[in-house]
C-alpha cells in the first residue's frame, strides 16, 4: 500500500491521531499535496456513501471528518500556492425559527470535505442573511438550507423563494432536513435535495458541475 493509500484508509477509519503523521510521511516521500488531498476527499466520499447506506453512523462520520481536517492542516501551507482546487463557496445555515444544528453541521463537514469553501451562518438564519452572505462572499456556487421541524418548512420555502427571486445568480440552492422530501424540494423551487449528509456532498458536486 502506498503512503497516499495509507492516508486514505486512515481518514476513512477516522484515525485522527495518526493521519497528520501519515500525511507528512507521504509528503516526505515526494507525494504531491493535491494528490494527497484528493485521496482524503475520496475517503470522505466513501464515508458519505456508507453513512447514506446506514453502514456507519454519526460518530464514525464525525471522526473521519476530524481526521481529514487534521491532515488538511499539514497540507495547507503547501496548497496555498497550488490554487487549492476549491469547487467554490457554499453558504450553509438552518432556516429561521429552527435551532437544530447537528444535521446541518454534518452536511457542512461533508460538503467541505468534498472540496468546497464553507461559510456557515449557523442556526435561525433569515432569508435576508442568506442573501447577504451570497452578496458578500466570493465565488458562491451553492446555498444549502436545512430545516428539521415541520413548523419551519414555511421558512424553508420562503428562504428558497427569496434566494431565487433576489436577482442574484451563479449559485444553486440545496435543501434538506427530516421533513423535507424530493417532491417538496421541487415544489418550493430548490435546485436539489439530499436526504442525508453523505448524499448532500454528492448532490453539491453534481449541482455545481451541471451549472
Amino acid at each position: 500500500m502506498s503512503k497516499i493509500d495509507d492516508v486514505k484508509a486512515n481518514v476513512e477509519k477516522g484515525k485522527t491521531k495518526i493521519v497528520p503523521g501519515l500525511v507528512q510521511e507521504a509528503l516526505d516521500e515526494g507525494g504531491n499535496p493535491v494528490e494527497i488531498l484528493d485521496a482524503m476527499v475520496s475517503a470522505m466520499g466513501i464515508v458519505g456513501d456508507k453513512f447514506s447506506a446506514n453502514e456507519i453512523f454519526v460518530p464514525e462520520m464525525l471522526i473521519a471528518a476530524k481526521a481529514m481536517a487534521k491532515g488538511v492542516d499539514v497540507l495547507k501551507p503547501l496548497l496555498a500556492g497550488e490554487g487549492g482546487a476549491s469547487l467554490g463557496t457554499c453558504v450553509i445555515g438552518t432556516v429561521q425559527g429552527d435551532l437544530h444544528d447537528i444535521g446541518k453541521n454534518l452536511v457542512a463537514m461533508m460538503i467541505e470535505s468534498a472540496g468546497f469553501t464553507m461559510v456557515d451562518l449557523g442556526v435561525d438564519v433569515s432569508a435576508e442573511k442568506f442573501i447577504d452572505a451570497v452578496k458578500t462572499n466570493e465565488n458562491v456556487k451553492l446555498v444549502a438550507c436545512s430545516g428539521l421541524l415541520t413548523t419551519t418548512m414555511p421558512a424553508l420555502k420562503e428562504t428558497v423563494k427569496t434566494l431565487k427571486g433576489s436577482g442574484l445568480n451563479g449559485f444553486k440552492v440545496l435543501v434538506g432536513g427530516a421533513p423535507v422530501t424530493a417532491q417538496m424540494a421541487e415544489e418550493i423551487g430548490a435546485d436539489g435535495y439530499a436526504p442525508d449528509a453523505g448524499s448532500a456532498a454528492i448532490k453539491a458536486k453534481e449541482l455545481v458541475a451541471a451549472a
Partner: protein
Amino acid sequence: MLTKKQNLLETIKGGSPDRFVNQYEFMDVAVFLPGFKYPLAPGQTVKDDWGITFTFPEDQIGAFPIHDDAHKVLKDITQWREQVKAPSLDFKDEEWAPAMEQASNVNREEQFLAAGQMPGIFEMTHHLMGMEDALMALYEEPEEMHGLIALLKDYELRRAEQIIDRLHPDALFHHDDWGGQSSTFLSPDMYADFFLEPYKEIYKFWKDNGVELIVHHSDSYAATYVPLMIEMGIDIWQGAMSTNNIPALIEQYGKQITFMGGLDSGAIDFPEWKPEICAEHVRKACQSCGKHYFIPCLTQGLGFSSFPGVYDEVSKQIDIISKEMY
C-alpha cells in the same frame, strides 16, 4: 369493560384487550420530581443542578441546552472528574410534596403511577458537552466516557432510590432519545458497548423495587436497538416512529416488548393540523399494527401536543377506531 390498567396488561401480554390503549391513559407520570429543572414555556432559561443551561426560545416548540464556550459544562472529556460534579440529592420534604400529592391522587387500580426520569444517560452526555464532542469522545476517549457514564448511572440510581422510597411508583417513564427519523445516532454495537449494561442495572433496580412496567421514550428510528431494549428490561418503547416498520417489529418481537407510537408528531402536530389528518394517521396505524403489543400514540414524550387540540383529537380518533375494530 376493562380498566385502563387491565386493558394495558391484556394488550402487552397478547391477551384480550377490549379496546386500543389510548395514548398515555394507562399511566400518570410524575414529572416534577426534585432535581428536575427544565424550561417549560417559551422565553424561559433554566440552569439545572449539573450546571447545564437550557433555553426555550419564544418561537420554538421545545428547549435546547446551550453549548457555547460560556455555557458548556464539560469542555474536555479527559477532565470530567474535575468539570462534572454530581449534584446533591439532599432534597427537603417540601420539595417532594407536590409529587407525593400527585401520587396519592392516582387510583392504582385504574392507572399506573409512573416516575418520570428525564433526561437519560445518553442525553446527559451530550447535554454536558455538546453532541459532537460527546459522539467523538466515544471513539477518542472511550475509557473516560465509560467513567462519565458510570457517574451518571450512579446518580440516577441514587435518585431512583429516593423516588421509590417516597412515591412507591409502579411504572417508570424514562426519557432518552437515541436517534433521528431514519437512523440511530450510534451503531447498535457501540450503543451496546457503552449503554447496555448501565441501563440493565438501572431498569433492574426499578423492577427489583416494585416497578412493574418500564416505559422508555425515544421518538426516533431505533428498530435495530429493539433486541437491546428487550435485554435492558424495557416493556414498552414509547415514541416508535412509523419509519421503524412497527408491524414487522410486532411480528418479530411483540411477545417481548410493546411498541407505543406509530403516530409521528411531526406529521400530525403542527400549526395547520386538521382532525382529518389525525383520523387518517390513527386509522392507518391501528389497522396496520393490530390489537396486540401496540399502543397508538403521538410519538412526543408525555401526554400533550405542541399545538392545542391535537392530543385530544388523536385520542378521540383512537376511540372511534376502537369501536370499529373491537
